[in-house]
């Protein structure tokens, strides 16, 4: 069974963290993963840096740019993850834009993911229709899940289609925005979370974008199976460093 499904079967509210591979320092990937697992984090999204991440806000873009300056590449990331499954048991997801994957070769990319033990992918600029027509079979062959985003503007019909094509979870973008921290959720977000909950989708939902503290984590997981923190964690890493990760996790989930 895919580790992502296993995790959801445990039944608890999930906390997932995102960071850009190669940031703050090139070789931080494995130390960050170890700290996250030791702190009780349920799942991790490892960001494959891209020069033009157009769905992301300034924090993730800057960390991505810094990671590239540090020398991060697709091949480098795979080599860092080569032995990762000897130490890390929680689900690992690669999140990145489609162009670097195309240049690496989609088939080779999927194969390398399978070899190092990646459970799934999130590719914001690969729309569900194109995935379904051209890549789903390949991803399945390599045991890779592909997670899709939905937003408050996504139509019900499209959400049902995404639900049908998805495995793992549906990534519920909290508001019409790029990534980046907000401190609270308004009633529009809460309404949207409830509306999705009422749709009784087959695939579990996880909220991302705008989760930065215990309050937003609680609010998000009241209506979904889990939440993802990105920008706020990246800022923490930049200012406090890898060693202090447990403090950050404790501040989110006591």
């Amino acid at each position, binding site marked *: 069974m895919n580790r992502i499904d296993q995790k959801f079967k445990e039944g608890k509210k999930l906390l997932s963290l995102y960071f850009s591979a190669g940031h703050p320092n090139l070789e931080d990937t494995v130390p960050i993963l170890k700290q996250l697992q030791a702190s009780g984090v349920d799942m991790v999204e490892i960001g494959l840096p891209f020069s*033009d991440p*157009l769905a992301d806000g300034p924090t993730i*873009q800057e960390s991505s740019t810094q990671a590239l300056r540090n020398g991060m590449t697709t091949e480098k990331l795979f080599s860092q993850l080569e032995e990762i499954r000897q130490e890390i048991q929680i689900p690992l997801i690669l999140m990145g834009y489609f162009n670097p994957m195309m240049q690496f070769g989609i088939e080779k990319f999927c194969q390398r993911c399978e070899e190092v033990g990646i459970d799934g992918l999130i590719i914001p600029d690969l*729309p569900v229709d194109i995935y379904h027509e051209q890549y789903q079979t390949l991803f399945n062959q390599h045991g890779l899940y592909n997670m899709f985003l939905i937003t408050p503007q996504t139509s019900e019909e499209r959400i049902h289609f995404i639900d049908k094509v998805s495995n793992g979870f549906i990534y519920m973008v909290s508001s019409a925005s790029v990534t980046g921290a907000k401190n609270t959720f308004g009633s529009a977000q809460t309404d949207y979370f409830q509306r999705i909950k009422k749709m009784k989708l087959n695939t579990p939902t996880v909220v991302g974008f705008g989760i930065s503290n215990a309050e937003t984590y609680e609010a998000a997981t009241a209506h979904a199976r889990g939440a993802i923190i990105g920008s706020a964690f990246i800022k923490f890493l930049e200012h406090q460093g890898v060693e202090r990760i447990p403090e950050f996790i404790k501040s989110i989930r006591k």
Partner: protein
Amino acid sequence: MNFNVDEKGYYGDFGGAFIPEMLYPNVEELRQNYLSITAEPDFKKEFDELLKVYVGRPTPLYFAKRLSEKYKTKIYLKREDLCHTGAHKVNNTIGQILLAQRLGKKRIIAETGAGQHGVATATVCALMGIECIVYMGELDIQRQAPNVARMKMLGAEVRPAQSGSKTLKDATNEAIRDWINNPVDTHYIIGSVVGPHPYPDMVARFQAVISEETKWQLAEAEGRDYPDHVIACVGGGSNAAGLYYHYLNDKRVNIIAVEAAGKGIDSGESAATSALGKEGIIHGSKTLLMQTPDGQITEPYSISAGLDYPGVGPMHAHLFRSQRAKFISIPDQEAMDWGLTLSQMEGIIPAIETAHAFAALDVCKFGPEEIVVFNCSGRGDKDLDTYIDYFKL
């Protein structure tokens, strides 16, 4: 082979809409409506009228006598440089502002490199009394002060793009992010035949007026409505798309595209995407783009700000791969020399982008009875500082 867009938004292998889900409703709204709205008689009437009384169309098709004598062929210039605001860009912004109004949009955003598309967008927003925000790379803002001032005079807000390399591609990223954050009331006026479907096709259709006029003007002048060669410079490729449009499937017409070689194709400072680019995704479109082996998009270079885009519209990528068009690339120096040549032989000071196209006369051979139409896409006023520096005028 068909060279127009297909039902799914592709030109052969290229095009499509590789966009994050956050953009899907915006782009989908446009896709579902652009053909029906632009086909409405009321839209057509207003579009044609504005092109006539505001832009100054039809632009002349001018027989360049001295140039023709020197190169022993029949050379015509389609004078898009005479459009209001100084280039063909306004054909597209007029079309898109009318579309935005009919979609009920209250706010316009745009990206700009050198500032020409920003000025053309600010102009139509002033014309219609609609709020206008133009994203421009911080470096470009410093380099293109007169156009920044123009946009401000026209009432637009110019927002610096401070991410990445702080140039056109980053301004485009910022504009896309703005659209993600403002999905309901905002229309994004893209300035070239780039971006996710339906933008490349929509912009090409608005620019198609260039070849539509060329056809009847040529029929009047030469007794046939097609030339033997059409030649235009290509950055993103909107002026070229406009000149090629009605000749795309006419095999009698040879298509030539001129890219900016910058300091030379192998110099590491170039914008010749057809020579240096590989297939990939940029700004939501599958096309040819300049990138590292690891798939990071690289920063192009050309002395002309309007040609230094790291990609090329998907229509052009298809014209290149299918060999329907011949692509050549011209270094800075030759383009600058042609700026001077055209000024002194025909009394027309071209934009540096436009000057690149004329350098095709040194590369390609044309017969004495052949008709060659150049897109004289923009005037050189905006480039005077560069010309002054370069020629020590």
